[in-house]
């Protein structure tokens, strides 16, 4: 993996990359959000202030899913009325991206996917709505109105300072899941499955006093 380096436009500290395709990153030194602009990196001027959080995942964690090795390179933090969750940006050894979501230590891994049928519009969403995907029905289990709480590390797109957004969480009856992210038009579609902490074989996780 190449590690292009650049200087933080805000504080001039070196920006180091785990992933050559990063479109956005956060300066580890001053926590400024920095986005790629042609060959330059431009400071957005927004400091990524992360909320207090208890996820055992952190940047740099390595693991495997379905036999493919990944590194955690970035993260988006969401909050909603009843709590919050993390979407950890994974980069696999072949350079492709995936997401590890962590909501109260319940984990799922998903990948961007093309929906087989048109996605429901945000206005017509309701719990129980079915979406056929690869021979199985994904059912809308929850509809969450969330807000962006923070960001860190390397991301495959610009993602900062967004307003409230709607997410639909879908699941099938054999452990598969999907998320529709209505923050963009057309909505983003991610498909994956629920995973256990143990099966990811994570290395470099956060330690907790007493554990």
């Amino acid at each position, binding site marked *: 993996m190449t590690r292009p380096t650049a200087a933080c436009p805000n504080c001039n500290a070196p920006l*180091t990359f785990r992933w050559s395709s990063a479109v956005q990153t956060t300066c*580890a030194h001053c926590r400024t959000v920095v986005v790629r602009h042609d060959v330059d990196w431009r400071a957005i001027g927004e400091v990524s202030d*992360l909320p*207090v*959080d*208890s996820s*055992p995942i*952190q*940047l*740099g964690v390595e693991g495997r899913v379905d036999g493919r090795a990944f590194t955690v390179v970035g993260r988006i933090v969401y909050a909603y009325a*009843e*709590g919050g969750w993390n979407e950890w940006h994974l980069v696999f050894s072949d350079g492709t991206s995936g997401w590890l979501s962590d909501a*109260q*230590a*319940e984990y*799922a891994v998903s990948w961007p996917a093309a929906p087989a049928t048109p996605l429901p519009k945000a206005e017509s969403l309701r*719990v129980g709505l079915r979406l056929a995907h690869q021979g199985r029905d994904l*059912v809308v*289990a*929850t509809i969450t109105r969330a807000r962006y709480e923070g960001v*860190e*590390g390397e991301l495959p797109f610009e993602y900062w300072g967004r307003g409230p957004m709607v997410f639909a969480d879908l*699941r*099938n*009856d*054999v*452990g*598969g*899941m999907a998320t529709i992210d209505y923050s963009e038009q057309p909505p983003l579609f991610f498909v994956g499955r*629920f995973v256990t*902490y*143990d099966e990811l074989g994570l290395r470099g*996780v*956060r*330690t*907790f*006093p007493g*554990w």
Partner: protein
Amino acid sequence: MVAVAPTRVAGFNCPNCGAAVERRALTHTRAVACTSCGAVLDPDDPNLVILQEAAMRERIVPAIPLGTRGTFGGHPFDVVGFQYRTIDVDGAIYGWREYVLFNPYQGFRYLSEYDGHWNFIRPLPYWPAEMKDGRIAAAWDGQSYRHFQTALATTRFVLGEFPWRVRVGDRVAVSDFVAPPFLLSRERTSDETTWSHGQYMTGAEVWKACGLETTPPLTTGIFANQPSPFAGKPAAAWRRFAALAALVLLALVGRQVAAAREPVLEERHVFSPPPPAPQPAAGYEPAFVTEAFTIREGGTVEIAVETNLNNAWMALDLALVNTSTGTAVNVDTELERYAGTDSDGVWTEGSPNGTLLVPWVAPGEYYLRVEPAGNAETAFVLRLRRDVVSGLPYALALVALLLWPVFVSVRAASFEARRWQESDAGSGGDDDDD
């Protein structure tokens, strides 16, 4: 390089009573009930809004203290919360206790206890499939779960930390589906459905997992997903019965093939009834003895009697007498044969022939002492064969072999009947959904 996030989550003081409130489940906690006064607090709100005033009319002491660390499924978990919930079934209140377990990597698990029966419960992130017949198909273990009970559960008492905003008075519709030792539970509110998977544990197993020195609550009754002590035993007993019965039948066939059926005596006689009373029949003596014959090997002896009885009866008292020891085996038989014609046509009754089987006769020389009686002159033939097969011991063996599988099956069925008595299918009486 690695982002610095605060790892310590401080406890705080209860704004209601001032007691120290611990936070063991880090920032995952959405509600915490003060262990001193029971006030339910929002740990994320800087002003610690009291979600609910202390509602502890009756204080319940958890059998497993909050803060206890146990090992379940190979991972350590802290007991961080406790709730007491009840259901109302036809006016009867049933209550059970639930413990919230936490591990920062594995997340949340639960322990439930009812009448000393325990379940280790993990939340299911996804929903299992509901089948047309109301059973639940679980993709991860291929089991089919049978509906046990649906009831409205109410939270009556809470203590410690919860990963959701718990309140005393929360009501959810709980449906349990069982495939012992497993339990699937669905909890439904108006806006959320969650599923969890439980595995039965005994109090002793839980106490060992938690390293507790105290005594677990007493176990009474049979729980929904309690594994039957007879699980699989009837099937095994019947399989063993089938194998042993096959052996018995094989032995019978072998015996039939090997039996000598050696004729040892054949004699023809004629019986004359005594002259009619009152004249005394001087010298009338119908009894006689046969020629001596040899039984070469110990075993069964068959005595076949063939007569020409016609509208008459005859009784035979027989004694098989050993010529050297004088010991005798006594048997008797009665034959009768009647025939005639009435409005329904020709009828017959009885049989002119009969067969007796002496189960064991030692080898040696014997004669047969015969004492006939009857009401008509009758010609009869006596045919003796040794080593003839008797089916009786084989039949007795089969009956004896049946005892265990029948016993085990009855016990297993009675255990299941007691289990299902507590279900909607059993308690309703009119609810015949299986």
